[in-house]
């Protein structure tokens, strides 16, 4: 739209031809180049050639000046605006747009962008291929020759045998001109690039009795452009080339050459072709004898709702949380995605292909969750005894699947040896219900302990912490996300009624969380203080934190003791801790190109109340990581000492 120049694709031919003919005709280039030398001269030389050419061109223009030239001068400036108008309203023919402004007689620049198509009458077009074609015969036998007579062209004539309103060139209009208010097509030209050409100009004129009258004239238009085409030696260069006629032989190559992206139904076929290999490969879908045929794990696709068809890829650990919405009364027992059977009641093929043996999914553990979030381990019996059931007149649905955790054991040959599932079932009285799913692949006969860095901590991985037991080193929790935790804000804001869930401290991530404490009476201060301390630090706060992400538990020197600082004001009879601030100071360790994060100290600061305990208090815990790395210092080696000694007999004859 902005770039109104004709493209190289279409215009290259006639630019070369027309310019070439004029250049060779004048013969000045050889004359000038003879006197040029060096690069600068060459540039000057080219400049001179262009100037010479321009002069030549203006001479041509002057020769063709006619009486209409005076109206042409100011059209250059309106190029862009006109082009924009054209782009929004013009049919794809080189015809002046339907501007109501008196552009009559002027050489409108509207049509300049389009050079070739004007030569084709809209009523002509190309004949369509007949549906039945004999082999080896071209689909289109012959193309009609384009019409170039401007007086017979009328692009706005879109109704056969009927007058088009405001189409002044429509041959079907006669009496209807009286109804017109303007001409939608004001002039028809063959090619806007030509310097001089015949144009059919249409206008309306008011007659003495007040009716409109069509005036059509054929005039010679002069193009004011410097670079118009004076004589066109290559007439074919101004129109589109003859396309290659598609035949049965070249059809595929033509499609390959000209095809562009488009809607296709090619992808509708199922892409999961079961391989018959001896073992699964990374990313292969795991085949089961369930209805779906593959192991699936619900996951959100595009929003937060569960898509039940999400497959599990071999060796691709997945973790997803999504929501499921259902009617508690009616869908509780029917919906398969909340039923434990759909996650455990099938078997997995050990290797791809129906011929391989099947592995049962072992129900490793079933945890039952009550309405208030309390969890209790159930003695595993049979998945069928955990079917969902509706309670309390359809307001509560029990034994809804809340968490599914698959652990799949595989051998190095890609054979699935074992599959276990741990499931959390809960009582639900409101939907949507959030479900979380996880699948982990474990190689058989290997025990891997994930570390939080090698050696330095990696951002986002949990801090390793534990307690020192004399003689046996550091004792850590088996869950590395449970070793150093802080309070988590919950919808129950009361500190004394917080659920047990806590947040792991992750390296490099600063956090704040809190709860509120409403104090009615401080009769038992020490008990309250103890309770708040328990909320802040949890059940067993560790003593030591690992200085590196892969610190070994037996290597006590690799661990940093946690300091405790308490700022207490003694002016109050009752002191309870209001905040816990964990400040972790870490430094960059090692070479400058590959610094490793090392924890140098961890301080927990308790702040007790500095005012009297009244009303609602805010209890908060924060975690902040402080980079205490010393800046890299420029250091210089001591200059080398020159230990050069002359041979003892250097000055032999003299000394």
């Amino acid at each position: 739209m902005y770039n109104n120049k004709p493209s190289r694709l279409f215009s290259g031919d006639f630019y070369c031809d027309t310019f070439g003919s004029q250049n060779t005709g004048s013969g000045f280039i050889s004359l000038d180049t003879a006197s040029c030398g060096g690069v600068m001269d060459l540039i000057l030389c080219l400049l001179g050639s262009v100037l010479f050419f321009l002069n030549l061109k203006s001479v041509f223009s002057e020769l063709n000046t006619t009486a209409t030239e005076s109206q042409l001068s100011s059209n250059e400036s309106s190029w862009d605006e006109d082009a924009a108008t054209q782009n929004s309203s013009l049919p794809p023919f080189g015809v002046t747009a339907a501007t109501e402004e008196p552009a009559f007689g002027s050489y409108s620049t509207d049509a300049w962008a389009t050079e070739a198509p004007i030569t084709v009458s809209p009523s002509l077009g190309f004949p369509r291929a007949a549906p039945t074609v004999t082999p080896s015969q071209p689909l289109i036998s012959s193309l009609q020759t384009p019409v170039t007579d401007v007086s017979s062209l009328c692009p706005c004539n879109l109704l056969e045998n009927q007058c088009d309103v405001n189409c002044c060139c429509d041959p079907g209009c006669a009496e209807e001109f009286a109804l017109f208010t303007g001409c939608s097509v004001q002039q028809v030209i063959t090619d806007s690039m030509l310097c001089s050409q015949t144009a059919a100009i249409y206008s309306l004129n008011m007659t003495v009795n007040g009716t409109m009258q069509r005036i059509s004239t054929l005039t010679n238009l002069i193009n004011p452009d410097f670079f118009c085409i004076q004589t066109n030696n290559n007439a074919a260069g101004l129109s589109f080339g003859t396309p290659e006629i598609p035949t049965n032989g070249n059809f595929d190559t033509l499609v390959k050459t000209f095809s562009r992206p488009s809607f296709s139904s090619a992808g509708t076929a199922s892409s999961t072709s079961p391989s018959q290999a001896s073992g699964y490969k990374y990313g292969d879908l795991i085949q089961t004898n369930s209805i779906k045929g593959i192991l699936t794990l619900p996951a959100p696709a595009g929003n937060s709702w569960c898509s039940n068809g999400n497959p599990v890829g071999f060796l691709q650990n997945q973790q997803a949380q999504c929501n499921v919405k259902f009617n508690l009364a009616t869908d509780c027992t029917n919906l398969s995605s909340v039923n434990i059977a759909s996650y455990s009641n099938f078997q997995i093929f050990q290797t791809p292909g129906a011929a391989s043996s099947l592995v049962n999914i072992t129900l490793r553990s079933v945890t039952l969750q009550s309405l208030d979030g309390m969890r209790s381990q159930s003695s595993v019996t049979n998945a069928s005894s955990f079917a969902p059931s509706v309670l309390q007149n359809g307001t509560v649905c029990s034994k809804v699947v809340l968490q599914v955790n698959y652990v799949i054991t595989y051998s190095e040959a890609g054979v699935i040896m074992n599959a276990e599932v741990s499931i959390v079932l809960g009582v639900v009285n409101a939907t949507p219900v959030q479900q979380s799913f996880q699948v982990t692949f474990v190689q058989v006969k290997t025990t891997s302990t994930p570390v939080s860095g090698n050696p330095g901590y990696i951002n986002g991985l949990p801090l390793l912490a534990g307690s020192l037991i004399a003689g046996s080193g550091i004792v850590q929790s088996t869950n590395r996300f449970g070793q150093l935790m802080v309070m988590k804000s919950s919808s129950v804001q009361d500190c004394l009624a917080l659920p047990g869930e806590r947040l792991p401290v992750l390296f490099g991530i600063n956090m704040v969380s809190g709860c509120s404490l409403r104090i009615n009476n401080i009769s038992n201060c020490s008990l309250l203080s103890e309770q708040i301390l328990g909320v802040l630090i949890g059940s067993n706060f560790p003593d030591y934190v690992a200085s590196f992400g892969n610190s070994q538990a037996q290597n006590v020197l690799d661990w940093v003791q946690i300091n405790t600082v308490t700022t207490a004001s003694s002016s109050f009879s009752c002191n309870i801790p209001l905040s816990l601030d964990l400040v972790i100071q870490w430094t960059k360790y090692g070479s400058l190109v590959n610094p490793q994060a090392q924890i140098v100290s961890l301080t927990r600061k308790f702040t007790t109340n500095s005012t009297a305990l009244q009303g609602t208090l805010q209890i908060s815990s924060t975690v902040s990581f402080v980079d205490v790395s010393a800046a890299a210092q420029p250091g210089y080696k001591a200059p080398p000492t020159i230990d050069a000694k002359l041979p003892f007999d250097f000055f032999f004859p003299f000394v």
Partner: protein
Amino acid sequence: MAIYEVYSHPALLRYKTSICTKATLFLLIVLGLTYIPPLLVTYKSQGFWIKLSTYEEQPVVKFQYQILMIATTSINGDYVAWSTFQNLNNLLGDSLRIPSVSVMEVDKNQDGKYDEMTFKLQLPLQSTEQVYSVNLILGFSYSLFRMSTFVMQSMAYIQHSSPLPGSLLYVNGDLKLQQRQPLNHRGLDTRYNVSVINGSSPFASAYDLTNIIGNYQERNVSTVLSWPSPLWMTGRAANSPFVISAVIRYPVEIITYPFQNFFNLFVCMLYATCCYVLFKSLAK
């Protein structure tokens, strides 16, 4: 009587002085003025060493016919979705709602490059459903050829939500290039010639909008649909479809690229020479 030149020869005048004279001092000052001010002027003017330059090009943009549409059909979050990715459609299950889509790309000025695309999606709805929000991803291929050949697959992301149920979302905007780093001045650049959405993946994580947009925003060169304001029309007749109508234009872009040191040197030399000539003439 006519006069004509018989012979001519240049005359050489020598001005001599001893070292400790005013003339020597003057000569030194003139020499200093000739060489130092040009350097100072070229250094102090900020354009001494250009690092970035720009050029203008209309990109070759082609619609890839990749569409992902998610529409929320109730205030509770029920949704219908459709995409041109068969794997996603399989995942969607009952939420799959196949719309009728029409696309037209137009080359308005006949320069061989498409200038705009008209997109219309008619989403059939049941009489109980209303559309409250729309997410739409359209995939394009975007190429630049003038300096370096830069080819990428990009996207236009359209998102709108309204508390009022809608009948039409009308979008009319430009597909703008977003550059975080300059493009090369030559060579072939296919860093981002990868699909925005991995349609061959059967896993749901490949179609997660946070993943798609997160990965896309990681790119240093991307496109963004710049639309001044969406038009959300309310009032939909029962059983009539929800319509997304979009006009996406492919405008000429100003692209930055690193200015080459060789040209820099050339420009600087030219600059210093000009200043030198100026001061030389002043000194004279």
